[in-house]
């Protein structure tokens, strides 16, 4: 069977552009079958994880399919008892959503009602979510940052060779196209980011677009170019600064709101860009944090360093 050209190219790229090593990943997909006489790792019998001989494997498969079928049937029966989809009288259409829709614009100030909810009405949840992202980045750094424990000399050599290969095989066309596209992408990302309270989008979507722009920049122009304006220090400063700004804003809102004090953040005229109190600064902070995190994911996965 003939595989299309783009697919082969993609495959080669995942192999690090090393033509001699284009062997399909048989090693990855078909590991040697576990031998029956070897003791399974678990000291206790595991109910959910089937390890062991071939008979055991077949049994596990049968068990898996059977249990999935039962679970699916039970869940389908549950769905049949749920209220009808899209009905006006459903439970979620209640006083909660009524207030979000009818008074959201006056109370909070953004015309995108979803933004009102995630950043103000339920701002605490969303702050927790930003912390999840922060934690995810920290965990990835903890695992993949190059140190004496997780990287051998051979790994370092491999990483260096990968960088070298990237530099040699860097695509001229990509560079030129990126030069043309980059302003557009940045503009689009900033628009999505700063217009989060007026139109769909907001910090998370805009931030990931900006992060994507950074990733594209590195692919097109090389690591050194990106490092010249975005290094370790900038990364930490921007990320921590954004998160602390976010924390201060949200703490202020919560404290003031809960204690019945007057809120001094102006709401502005709904529908204009400078409106909706804390929403715009929070969106910018979230966007910066998300962009940093996405780029950090990329670099730590790629070469274990920023």
């Amino acid at each position, binding site marked *: 069977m003939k595989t299309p050209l783009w697919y082969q190219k993609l495959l080669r790229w995942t192999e690090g552009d090393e033509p001699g090593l284009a062997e399909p990943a048989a090693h990855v997909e078909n590991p040697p079958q576990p031998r029956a006489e070897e003791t399974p790792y678990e000291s206790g019998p595991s109910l959910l994880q089937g390890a062991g001989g071939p008979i055991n494997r077949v049994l596990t498969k049968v068990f898996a399919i059977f249990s999935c079928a039962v679970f699916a049937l039970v869940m389908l029966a549950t769905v049949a008892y749920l209220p009808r989809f899209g009905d006006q009288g459903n439970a979620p259409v209640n006083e909660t959503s009524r207030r979000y829709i009818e008074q*959201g614009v006056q109370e909070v100030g953004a015309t995108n009602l979803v933004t009102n909810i995630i950043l103000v009405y339920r701002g605490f949840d969303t702050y927790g979510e*930003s912390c999840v992202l922060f934690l995810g980045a920290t965990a990835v750094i903890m695992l993949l940052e190059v140190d004496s424990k997780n990287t051998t000399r051979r790994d370092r050599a491999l990483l260096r060779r990968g960088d070298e290969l990237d530099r040699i095989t860097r695509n001229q066309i990509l560079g030129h196209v990126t030069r043309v596209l980059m302003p557009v992408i940045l503009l689009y990302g900033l628009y999505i980011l700063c217009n989060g309270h007026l139109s769909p989008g907001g910090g998370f979507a805009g931030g990931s677009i900006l992060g994507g722009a950074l990733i594209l920049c590195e692919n097109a122009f090389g690591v050194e170019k990106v490092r010249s304006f975005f290094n370790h220090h900038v990364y930490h400063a921007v990320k921590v600064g954004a998160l602390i700004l976010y924390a201060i804003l949200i703490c202020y809102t919560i404290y003031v709101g809960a204690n019945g004090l007057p809120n001094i953040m102006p709401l502005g005229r709904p529908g204009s860009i400078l409106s909706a109190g804390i929403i715009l600064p929070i969106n910018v902070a979230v966007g910066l944090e998300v962009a940093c995190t996405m780029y950090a994911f990329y670099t730590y996965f790629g070469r274990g360093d920023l």
Partner: protein
Amino acid sequence: MDINAMLQMLHANRFETASVLLFVVGLAGMVFNRNLFKKVVSMGFMDSAIFLFLTSSGFVEGRLAPIVTNPAVPASAEVYSNPLPAGLVLTGIVVSVSFTAFGLALTQRLYKRYGSLNIDEIMMRAQKSED
């Protein structure tokens, strides 16, 4: 409830039905697939299934997306669909990305160490290196 009424409900709730099936498939992939990489991919499917379920509960037939077009006029609750589920799912999507990254990082480290993605194989090799 007889089977015909049930099928009719399943058709009416088609988004929920699909999300439930997707959830089961994703869950099965996470628990029973032995390949760590596919476990992480299945995790994405499972999370998306939950988000689909949640979002479909906010949909109301014939109403608009929750973005007020004319802020000067007070919005009527009969015009826009429920914005709350969309907000929750937005939170969930970002959480799910961090978990994907974390799971992939772990997978990558394990592969570099044990040269395999099959979790049984890895367990056996880890057991051997411990003894």
